[in-house]
């Protein structure tokens, strides 16, 4: 028998027997997350599974309910749905992160729940983010979450893996987001369908945890089931800072079998831009034809962390602030991020420039809470998706880029190649 990939190994350990790509298995995830976007429907399914009424969760201690998609700006009906999730959590001792605490994914990562060797699921597609911490982490639907509430189990197909070998380091001014868009450009929106993206190679060491989160997060934009990183010194020191000592690092076997392999020289990655309305419709920023920008969005589970705002602010300050006619919207990924930005004076600097600061959460990303772009407007965002209508208005055009590229456009009022590393 050949060796195992990280994904195969984590699932094998969880199951207590060796499994390989292609097998259908029943797993007991170590952790499951749901959001106000997915829990209300899960509770409906749970009622149907349980003769018309909800039952307590099988393992309440393995759950996080994040009320991140909706806020007061979402309207009374959304808040009604959100209330169902909150009530169930309160009734059954489930940890609930209420409105304003942040995006569920960010909270999972900040709280040390993402630990090497764990099988983690979330009823939200960007649950792949936790793979940055050497976990098997994937998105599920509401019915799957209901099944987990009922019996603690979920069915999964063991994915084949695509090995992404990284060499070197990113050039100054080039971000993990650029690498993620570069990958999306190469693999396309379905290039990793049903697969695990397993990152490896000497270049991994040059990526900090925030960078890894961006890549694991956006693995799903290529169709991947998981995006998984090895556990190295960066991981260990992050876990130490979080006070986490109980974990089991998982490395791929040297003779593991991969569906395909891709080598990337990080030094060759250039600033990237996803054009409307596809995440894989990507060009080099240097090749963009100058486009006037109306709204710039800094936030989401992809681009709403402290480092993102620091980088964006540096570019804005170097260019004298926000250009006339540009609406800059800042939505920190979590309250912890927001508080840190406040301590550093970053938030005040954004406010002073005239940016709109929204409460931590999903915000405008999928049009469920907060500022909605105007019709015929051009939006540049640090988010992960630019589908038509994604931010709540099908008449807006959404471009995706790194925080730095977004900030430069906010400062100049235009999306162009100037000031971006070639």
């Amino acid at each position, binding site marked *: 028998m050949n060796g195992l990939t990280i994904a195969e190994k984590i699932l094998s350990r969880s199951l207590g*027997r060796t499994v390989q790509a292609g*097998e*259908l*298995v*029943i797993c007991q995830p170590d952790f499951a997350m749901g959001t106000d*976007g*997915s829990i*209300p*429907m899960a509770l*409906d*399914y749970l009622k*149907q*599974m*349980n*003769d018309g009424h909800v039952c307590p969760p099988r393992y309440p201690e393995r759950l996080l309910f994040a009320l991140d*998609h*909706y806020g007061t700006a*979402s*309207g009374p*009906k*959304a808040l009604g*749905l959100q209330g169902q999730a909150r009530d169930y959590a309160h009734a059954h001792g489930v940890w609930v992160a209420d409105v304003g605490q942040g995006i569920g994914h960010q909270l999972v990562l900040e709280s040390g729940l993402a630990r090497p060797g764990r099988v983690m699921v979330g*009823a*939200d*597609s960007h649950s792949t983010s936790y793979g940055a911490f050497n976990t098997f982490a994937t*998105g*599920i*639907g*509401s*019915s*799957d979450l*209901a*099944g987990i509430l*009922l*019996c603690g*189990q979920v*069915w999964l197909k063991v994915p084949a893996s695509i090995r992404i070998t990284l060499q070197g380091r990113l050039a100054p001014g080039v971000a993990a987001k650029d690498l993620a868009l570069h990958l999306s450009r190469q693999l396309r*929106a*379905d290039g990793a*369908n*049903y697969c695990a993206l397993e990152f490896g190679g000497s270049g991994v060491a040059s990526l900090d945890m925030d960078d890894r989160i961006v890549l694991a997060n956006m693995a799903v934009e290529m*169709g991947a*089931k998981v995006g998984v990183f090895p556990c190295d010194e960066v991981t260990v020191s992050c876990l130490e800072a979080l006070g986490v000592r109980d974990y089991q690092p998982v490395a791929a076997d040297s003779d593991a079998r991969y569906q395909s392999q891709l080598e990337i020289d990080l030094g060759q990655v250039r600033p990237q831009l996803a054009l409307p309305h*596809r995440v894989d419709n990507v060009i080099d920023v240097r090749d963009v034809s100058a486009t006037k920008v109306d709204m710039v969005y800094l936030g989401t589970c992809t681009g709403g962390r402290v480092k993102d705002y620091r980088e964006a602010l540096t570019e804005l300050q170097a260019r004298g602030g926000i250009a006339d006619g540009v609406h800059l919207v800042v939505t920190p990924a979590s309250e912890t991020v927001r508080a840190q930005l406040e301590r550093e004076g970053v938030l005040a600097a954004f406010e002073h420039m005239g940016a709109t600061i929204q409460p931590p959460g999903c915000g405008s990303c*999928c*049009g*469920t809470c907060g500022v*909605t772009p105007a019709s015929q407007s051009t939006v540049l965002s640090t988010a992960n*998706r630019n*589908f*038509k*209508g*994604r931010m*709540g208005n*099908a008449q807006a055009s959404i471009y995706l880029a790194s925080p730095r590229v977004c900030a430069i456009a906010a400062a100049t009022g235009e999306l162009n190649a100037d000031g971006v590393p070639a």
Partner: protein
Amino acid sequence: MSVLPIHGRARVFADDINTDYIISSHRKKETIDPQVLKQYLLEDARPGFAATLGEGDILVAGKNFGCGSAMEVAVTVVLAAGIRAVVAQSFSRTYLRNALNNGLLPVVADTRAIAEGEQLALRMDEQGRLLLDHGQAQPIVCEGLPEFVLNMLQAGGLVAYLKKHRSFDQTLASSSD
């Protein structure tokens, strides 16, 4: 397999139809009732589409149907609109599992030759192959589904399966051999 045969009219879409196109997140925040949401089905991809749907229409698409968000209303709204099967060259994994869990039949097949409005029939032949009849003399041979998945579909989806079995423990025994 009792869910077959399925007869219907082809409603053809392109590659990479994402779940936000199938049903927009901003519609979902008002209600998750698919009977209400079905009037907005695929509105951003093809305005006015829901009003043109007939009972039993079959969605036909290219690659990567249902990519993007894992939201399950993108499946229940399709079922509520009277659609029982989606035939595509490939599916996003979250859409595939949500479809199977809800008893919407996701069929992987080469859809390139299927034209809008064509009469389709999905059926199983004597050898257990899943076939798709369309305008041509030769049916399209579709990809088969794993046994566990077929069992779940036959039971009416995940809800009916777990209502009956309460857990996957029975499945565990059968899937390990």
